[in-house]
């Protein structure tokens, strides 16, 4: 056992030395970098390396030919990376200075990565913010500076079993909170559903279903001065409304994982909130055409959540100008429309929705409408942590006798103690 003490002592000594070597922070704090330097005119040249996740990474090469036709001096190399672990891969790449030129970045990661100083500010001469849905553009703006462009978007709507809705006598989408509650109650009482709706009872990502109600009620996550606003009357009332679906037994609180889609198809669950990917999932279950989507109800506003993916250029990019030119190409309305046809990602550029393929489909049109009124969480570096704490509290709100006011207070305290990470 004697062998144990010496290594431990050695470790301690080494640590002390390392600790002294760490020099301390510069008092830089929150910095507004301002827009990126202008990108050169003329076609792109050289190799452009891009990382993109999953199906996006697999299919992106299909768009490359169109780019290299106009930029014959450039080549684009796409490396697909898995979504699973993508966050770690990008953050270690920034740490090691081993980044590609461009990468697809989940919208909620922007705040964290921008703060590493590893992302290049968006050059104003190439990208026009007004082209994009405002909620989506906001995901790129960190401390007043934009660090990328939205590539594709998703937003959340109600998926409703048409059969159940018809039996319940619900012909038109409810337009207010009261109407929504009434419609869901009717689907359960008259429509034959065991549950009128399945709302997420806390757990990972539930904030994406809850915050829209806060926004609809005129609430916000942060006040203008940057302090958190989880405990405002608006937010508290929204939490109260959300909880009421559980206390009134309109939504299950412990639905087993994987049971949602089959129960929805069987009419046991009348409705649920989700994004456009459920179109594909329900198609696989052979349920195409047997359901409808509702936009969010309106209280003060009819706001939903907007997510998706942004494209960012790295500070360590070897071909910065080429990278931005490729990003700008991907934001062209016609390329955005082609991309939708290739993979089904909804365009982040507004004018791309004029494309007949998008306009003709009423299901998609509903998503298009909702995108005009959709928000994203603040791009603060600590958002993931605050959101996870919020999810924990949501579970307590829904499953225990915690009141909305208690929950709002705890969420506020928690967020304030975590802070915004500089």
């Amino acid at each position: 056992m004697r062998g144990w003490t010496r290594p431990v002592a050695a470790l301690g000594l080494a640590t002390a030395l390392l600790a002294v070597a760490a020099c301390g922070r510069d008092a830089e704090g929150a910095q507004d970098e301002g827009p990126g330097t202008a990108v050169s005119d003329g076609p792109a040249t050289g190799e452009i390396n891009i990382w993109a996740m999953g199906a996006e990474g697999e299919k992106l090469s299909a768009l490359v030919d169109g780019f290299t036709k106009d930029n014959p001096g450039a080549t684009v190399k796409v490396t697909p990376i898995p979504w699973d672990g993508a966050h770690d891969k990008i953050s270690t790449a920034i740490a090691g200075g081993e980044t590609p030129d461009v990468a697809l970045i989940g919208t909620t990661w922007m705040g964290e990565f921008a703060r590493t100083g590893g992302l290049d500010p968006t050059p104003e001469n190439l990208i026009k913010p007004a082209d994009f849905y405002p909620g989506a553009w906001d995901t790129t703006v960190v401390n007043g500076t934009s660090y990328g462009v939205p590539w594709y978007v998703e937003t959340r709507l109600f998926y409703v079993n048409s059969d159940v809705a018809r039996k319940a006598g619900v012909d038109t989408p409810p337009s207010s909170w009261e109407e929504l509650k009434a419609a869901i109650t009717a689907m359960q009482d008259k429509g034959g559903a065991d549950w009128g709706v399945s709302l997420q009872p806390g757990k990972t990502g539930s904030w994406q279903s809850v915050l829209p109600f806060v926004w609809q009620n005129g609430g916000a996550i942060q006040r203008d001065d940057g302090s958190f606003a989880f405990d405002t009357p608006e937010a508290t009332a929204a939490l109260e409304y959300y909880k009421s679906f559980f206390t009134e037994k309109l939504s299950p609180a412990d639905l087993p994982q994987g049971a949602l889609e089959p129960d929805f198809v069987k009419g046991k669950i009348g409705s649920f909130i989700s994004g456009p990917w459920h179109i594909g999932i329900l198609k696989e279950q052979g349920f195409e055409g047997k359901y409808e989507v509702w936009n969010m109800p309106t209280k003060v506003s009819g706001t939903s959540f907007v997510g998706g993916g942004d494209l960012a250029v790295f500070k360590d990019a070897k071909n910065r100008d080429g990278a931005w030119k490729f990003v700008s190409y991907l934001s062209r309305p016609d390329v955005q429309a082609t991309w939708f046809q290739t993979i089904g990602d909804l365009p982040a550029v507004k004018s791309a929705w004029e494309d007949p393929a998008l306009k003709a489909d009423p299901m998609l049109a509903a998503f298009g409408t909702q995108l005009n009124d959709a928000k994203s969480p603040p791009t603060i570096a600590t958002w993931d942590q605050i959101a996870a704490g919020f999810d924990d509290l949501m579970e307590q709100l829904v499953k225990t006798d915690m009141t909305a006011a208690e929950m709002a207070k705890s969420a506020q305290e928690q967020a304030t103690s975590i802070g915004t990470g500089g």
Partner: protein
Amino acid sequence: MSAVTTVDSPAKRRPRDRVAKLVLHAVLAVGLLVMVGPFLWMLLSSFKSEGEIREVPPTWWPRRLTIGNYADLFDRLDFPAYFTNSVVVATAVTAGNLVLCSAAGYALAKMRFPGRGTLLGLVLGTVMVPGMVTFVPLFVLVSKMGLTNTFAGLILPFLVGAFGVFFMRQFIQSIPDELIESARIDGAGEVRIFWRIILPLCRPALATLGILTFLGSWNNFLWPLVIATTEDKYTLPVALALYSVGQNETDYGLLLAGSVVVVVPVLVVFILLQRHFVRGIATTGLK
């Protein structure tokens, strides 16, 4: 074959033994079902459509057999390339662990030399450091050495393991000293003793360590993911994760088919090596 049965006196115990043996087989067989069930479900479900996999309650036998998931998988992935990368990395890592860890384990178990206690303490200490904590520092270190996107970067950090040394040391410790002493008296050098006496006696341990190391390296996901910056250095688990897990949804068909594909080589290695578990000292050494 095993020690206990061979030393039983056959004449005295036969009738009772037969019953006991039957009971033992039955109990182990029931246990086997419990152990194998999920694997079977994984195998069968990989031949189902996405809709059927998601059904609640799940089905066992596919209503309609489809090889669509596998076709999709092999169609979308450059399978031979990823498979080769995985084999190269896992084989190198396993070989390195077997040779280097058993050598170090032998020295730590049977030799007295200055610094031995310290080294052993450091090794044990490292086994006990939670793995995640060193991930980022290790990556920065390896990238500063210029080893990102190289096989060296994929292999070197795992070429030895604190676990392997600990395991081999424990095993070698149980080899009687007399064997080594008598070889020393016969004039054999340490290398010769290691090679001719220790390693053959260690066959069950080496087979075990080989399987565990191979499995660990074969399934390693996060390290190859961050080290390989271009597709041509991806290993199988990284490539398989590419299209099965999306931003908001999971393709279970691809996931299960991929899981089956990735498990086959490990099973082959296990089946090849497991026979060595029973050929150790019990049958070869110690007359």
